[in-house]
C-alpha cells in the first residue's frame, strides 16, 4: 500500500509527452488507445471516401484501378485492426479495472507495450502506400496467389499484422488476468457487469485465434521468400487452404469486434431504461455460446470454393445456429427497454440505433448463410452491405454509445447533448443512404472491389457516395463534441446517469482519481 501511495503523488512523475510514452496507468493507456483508434478511423475514412468518389459515376475518374485496389485493401485493414479493435481495447483499459474494483490492470508495463506497438504497425501500413508498387492490393483477406506476388508492401503488411497480433495478444492476456485475479471482494463472476463478461470472452477468443493469424501470415512470408510452398500451387501448395486457415481466424475475429459492442450496449440500455438488464445470466451464456460456435462456421466465407455438399450443409446449419444466441441478446435488450422509464440521451440513441441496425445486418448474414443464395451473392455489394451494417452500425455505434456514456465519467465534464444528438441523427441518416442501396446493388449483381461498373448501377452508387460524404463529415462532430467537453464542458455529477449501477458510477468521482480503488471496495 505504502509504495502505491507514494507513487500517487507523483514523485518523479514524467510530464508532457514522456508521461504518455512511459505511462503504465490504465486510464492513460485507455485514453491513448481511444485517440489512436479515432485517428485511424479518420484515416481509414479518408480511404473510403476516395473509394466512394471513384464509384460516384461509372467509368474511371479519380484513381487508377491499381490504386483503387490498394484503397479497398488498406481501408479494410486499417478499420479492422486500427480503429475498431483498438477502440474496444481502449474501453477495456478504462472500464474493466473500474468496473471490477481493481486498482489497475494486472501487468501495467506490458499494457504500455501493447499500446505503443500499435503506432509502429500503423506507420508501417500507411507508409506502404509510398513504396515502389504501392500498398498491398489483394484485399484485407490477403488471399494467395495475389498476395504471394506483389511487392515489398506485402511484406510490410505481413510485418504490421504480426505486430498488431502481438499487441492484441498482450492486451488480451492482461485483460484475462485482471478479470480473473483482481476483482474486488464480493465481486463474483456472476456479479460482473456484462461489459466485463463480454471482454473476458473476447480476450479468450483473441488468445485463441490471433496466433493462428500470425501463423498464417508467417506461411505467406515463407512462401514469398524462403521457398516453402504452403499456398503456392506451382510448388504443390494449396491456395484454398489459406482461406480455411485465414477464416478459422477470420470468423472469430468478427465476433472479437462485436462482443465488446454487445457489452457496451448491455451497460447503456439498462441505464437509460432504468431497469436491470433483462436475462443477465442468459446474456452471459449467449456470449459464451457465440464464442464457441464462432469456431465452427468459418467456411461460410468459402461456399464458392468447391467444397463437398455435406460440408456446405454443415457450415450452413452451424452458421444459422449462431443466430440463436444472437437473437437471445436482441430480445433481451428489447425486453430491458420494455416498460422502462426511458430517456433518449445520445448514448441511448446510439444503443437503440445499434439494436435496430445491427439486427438488419444479422438478418442479411442469415441470408448469406444459405449456401445456394450465397453462391449468387458472394463477392457482391450485398456482402459489403451486410458487414457494414454489423460493423459500422454495430461495433462503431456501440463505440459511440460508450464514448458518450462514459465521457462524463472520464473527463468529469458533460458533453454537449445537442451536438451529440445531431451527431447521432446525421450519422444514422447518412449511414442508411450510404449502405442501404448496396443491398440492391448486390442483389442486382454488382461485384465488390471493382473500380468501375455497368451503367444500370449508376443511380444507387451516386446515392451511396452522397451518403458516404455525409457520414464521413458527420464524424467530425464527434471530434468537436469531445474537444468541447474536455475544454469547457459543465461539471458532471459523479453518478451522471442515475440508472447506471456499476462501480465506476457508484463508488468513484468524475473524473476518477488517477489511481482508483487503491483499497478495494467491498461489493455486497
Amino acid at each position: 500500500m505504502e509504495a502505491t501511495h507514494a507513487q500517487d503523488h507523483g514523485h518523479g512523475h514524467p510530464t508532457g509527452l514522456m508521461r504518455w510514452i512511459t505511462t503504465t496507468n490504465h486510464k492513460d493507456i485507455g485514453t491513448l488507445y481511444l485517440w489512436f483508434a479515432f485517428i485511424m478511423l479518420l484515416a481509414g475514412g479518408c480511404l473510403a471516401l476516395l473509394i466512394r468518389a471513384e464509384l460516384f459515376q461509372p467509368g474511371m475518374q479519380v484513381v487508377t484501378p491499381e490504386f483503387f485496389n490498394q484503397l479497398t485493401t488498406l481501408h479494410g485493414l486499417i478499420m479492422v485492426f486500427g480503429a475498431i479493435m483498438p477502440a474496444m481495447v481502449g474501453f477495456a483499459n478504462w472500464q474493466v479495472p473500474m468496473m471490477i474494483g481493481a486498482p489497475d490492470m494486472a501487468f501495467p508495463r506490458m499494457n504500455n507495450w501493447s499500446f505503443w506497438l500499435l503506432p509502429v504497425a500503423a506507420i508501417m501500413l500507411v507508409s506502404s502506400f509510398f513504396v515502389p508498387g504501392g500498398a498491398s492490393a489483394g484485399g484485407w483477406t490477403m488471399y494467395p496467389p495475389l498476395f504471394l506476388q506483389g511487392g515489398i508492401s506485402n511484406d510490410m503488411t505481413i510485418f504490421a499484422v504480426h505486430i498488431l497480433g502481438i499487441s492484441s495478444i498482450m492486451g488480451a492476456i492482461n485483460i484475462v488476468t485482471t478479470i480473473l485475479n483482481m476483482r474486488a471482494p464480493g465481486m463474483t463472476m456472476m456479479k460482473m457487469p456484462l461489459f466485463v463478461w463480454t471482454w473476458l470472452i473476447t480476450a479468450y477468443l483473441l488468445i485463441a485465434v490471433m496466433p493462428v493469424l500470425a501463423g498464417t501470415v508467417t506461411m505467406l512470408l515463407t512462401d514469398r521468400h524462403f521457398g516453402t510452398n504452403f499456398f503456392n500451387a506451382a510448388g504443390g501448395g494449396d491456395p484454398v487452404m489459406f482461406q480455411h486457415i485465414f477464416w478459422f481466424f477470420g470468423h472469430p475475429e468478427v465476433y472479437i469486434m462485436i462482443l465488446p459492442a454487445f457489452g457496451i450496449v448491455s451497460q447503456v440500455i439498462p441505464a437509460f431504461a432504468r431497469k436491470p438488464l433483462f436475462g443477465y445470466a442468459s446474456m452471459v451464456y449467449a456470449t459464451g455460446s457465440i464464442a464457441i460456435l464462432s469456431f465452427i462456421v468459418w467456411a461460410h466465407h468459402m461456399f464458392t470454393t468447391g467444397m463437398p455438399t455435406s460440408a456446405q450443409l454443415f457450415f450452413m446449419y452451424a452458421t444459422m445456429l449462431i443466430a440463436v444466441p444472437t437473437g437471445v441478446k436482441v430480445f433481451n435488450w428489447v425486453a430491458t427497454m420494455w416498460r422502462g422509464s426511458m430517456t433518449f440521451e445520445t448514448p441511448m440513441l446510439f444503443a437503440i440505433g445499434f439494436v435496430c441496425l445491427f439486427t438488419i445486418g444479422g438478418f442479411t448474414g442469415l441470408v448469406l448463410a444459405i449456401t445456394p443464395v450465397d453462391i449468387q451473392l458472394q463477392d457482391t455489394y450485398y456482402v459489403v452491405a451486410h458487414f457494414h451494417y454489423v460493423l459500422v452500425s454495430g461495433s462503431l455505434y456501440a463505440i459511440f454509445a460508450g464514448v458518450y456514456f462514459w465521457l462524463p465519467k472520464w473527463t468529469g465534464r458533460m458533453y454537449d447533448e445537442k451536438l451529440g444528438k445531431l451527431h447521432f441523427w446525421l450519422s444514422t441518416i447518412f449511414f442508411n443512404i450510404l449502405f442501404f442501396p448496396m443491398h440492391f446493388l448486390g442483389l442486382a449483381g454488382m461485384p465488390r472491389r471493382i473500380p468501375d461498373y455497368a451503367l444500370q448501377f449508376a443511380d444507387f452508387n451516386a446515392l451511396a457516395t452522397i451518403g458516404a460524404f455525409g457520414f464521413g463529415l458527420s464524424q467530425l462532430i464527434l471530434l468537436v463534441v469531445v474537444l468541447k467537453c474536455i475544454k469547457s464542458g459543465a461539471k458532471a455529477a459523479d453518478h451522471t446517469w442515475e440508472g447506471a449501477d456499476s462501480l465506476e458510477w457508484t463508488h468513484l468521482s468524475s473524473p476518477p482519481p488517477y489511481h482508483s480503488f487503491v483499497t478495494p471496495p467491498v461489493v455486497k
Partner: protein
Amino acid sequence: MADAQQQNSTVLKKLIIVTVLMFGFGFLLVPFYKKICEVTGISKDKIAVSNTQMDPARWVSIEFDANVGKNLPWKFEPLTAHLRVHPGEFKQVMYRVVNTTNRTMVGQAIPSYGPARAGSFFQKIECFCFTQQTLKPGEEKIMPVQFVVQNDLPKDVHTITLSYTFYEQVKADAS
C-alpha cells in the same frame, strides 16, 4: 500483494503457453486439412482426370509415312511407323528430318490421308506441317505431331495412313 503477483504470473504463464500452442496449431492445420481431404476423398489428386470423349471399344490403326519432294535432298522419317489408337484418344508421335546438303534450306511438309475422306476426322492439334522449317547444312530436327482421331470417324475405316511430303519452299519474300 506478493501473493497476488504470484497468482498473476501463474495466469500469465498459462496464457502464454496457450498462445504458443495456438501458433503451432495454425501450422498443424496444414497436415490436418491434407489428411481430411485424403480421408474424405476430396483431395485434388484423387479426382481422376478421365477422358470422357474416348471410345475404348474401338481401335484404329495409324500408319505414318514420310516422303521428300524431288528438289529437296533431305532425310525425312517417322520415329514411330505404326500406332493403334482409340478414337478420341490424344496421341503424339515424332518425325525426324535432316538437311543432308551443305546449304540452308526451307521446306514445308504437306499432309495427305489414305483413305482421303479420313482426313476430315483426323484432328491435328500440333504439327510441324503448320509452319515452314528452316534447316542449316547438316542440321537435324525432331518434330512432333499431336492428334486426335475423332469419334465420328466412319465405322468402316480401320486404318488411316498419314503421309507427309516435304517440298522445298522458294523463299517467300523472293516471290
